């Protein structure tokens, strides 16, 4: 807030999606209970924060994946603050050519995200480690056909 003259960020990006942990905050605990009892499917803690934090007339971009129903999304805040909410599964085919050109030109090297090369047979264990945020697992890459 200090950095934005107390206006709030111009744009907020929710890159977490439906499994926000919320670190034990009251709304996140309620989300977990609701998901466990089938009263809701998605845990929308991050989306709530993004809407509440975003400056008036700002933009909330949601690349994080949501799958079903979320509860207590502050639509009143979004409406009254005049937010723009943009989201969607990626239109991948629209971006592959220009982004490949950036990689080939050496402008960007996305391989920096790879933390764990693994075999396909290792995959079940890697899913578990990735889910439980163990051993620094961020990106597992497997090479089954080589």
């Amino acid at each position, binding site marked *: 807030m200090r950095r934005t003259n107390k206006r709030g960020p*111009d744009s907020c*990006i929710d890159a977490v999606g439906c499994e926000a942990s919320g670190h034990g905050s009251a709304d996140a605990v309620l989300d977990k209970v609701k998901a466990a009892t089938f009263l809701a499917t998605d845990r929308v803690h*991050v989306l709530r924060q993004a809407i509440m934090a975003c400056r008036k007339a700002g933009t909330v971009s949601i690349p*994080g994946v949501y799958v079903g129903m979320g509860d207590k999304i502050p639509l009143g805040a979004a409406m009254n603050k005049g937010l723009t909410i943009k989201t969607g599964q990626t239109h991948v085919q629209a971006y592959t050519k220009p982004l490949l050109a950036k990689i080939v030109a050496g402008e960007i090297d996305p391989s920096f995200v*790879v933390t764990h090369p693994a075999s396909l047979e290792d995959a079940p264990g890697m899913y578990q480690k990735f889910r439980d945020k163990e051993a620094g697992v961020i990106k*597992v890459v497997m090479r089954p056909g080589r």
Partner: protein
Amino acid sequence: MRALCWHGRGDVRVDTVPDPKIEHPRDAVIKITACAICGSDLHLFDGYQPTMESGDILGHENMGEVIELGSEVTNLNIGDRVVVPFTISCGNCWFCQRGLFSCCDRTNPNAEIAAKAMGQSPAGLFGFSHMLGGYSGGQAEYLRVPMADIGPIKIPHSITDEQALFLSDIFPTGYMAAVNAQIQPGDTVAIWGCGPSASSRSAPLSCWELGASLPSTKCRSVWQWPKPGVPKSSISRRRTSMRN
């Protein structure tokens, strides 16, 4: 072939399953040379996504070598090295014609189920439930690629698999997130999910990339993003006060 199959919440196993084959003239079959586990695969692993069935093959970040082609795929050759977008799109419908490929009207054979849940059906996706097409994913030795004349992009040998693979999802996803954020020069951008959630890793990179063409844009996040040729000290990496 060997493939990573979903069997229930928290239960994935590597099984031996039938090899994929050409089922339509616009199909290709590729030998998977690299594939990745996406943060959204964890939603499947944790049982959040409806309409998963036991035995479904996971994986939507895929690349490989073309080993078989349908008769209508004329832009690829056997042996081509390709990255496959996770969205399956026909290229011809109202949405595809407007570049809205993930909204393709024709690639979800289970569109009725998706429409009941969402009003209309989005595009089919690799390895992402029956509601979204029931297509087998690529965490496997081989993958059938529908609409292979539209999706796969040929990769030059000057770059490695690890450099190219993320064109399948997380690099364009982070980039589109930054485009959707409608960043203007001088803007401050807050990003949630710069931890282990993989698709978020390219969002700061992409914000900054957009910023590179808008010299006064400043993007800040908890993640440190590298860029060739730029001294790290010139990039601000201070934490936002509203980080998750």
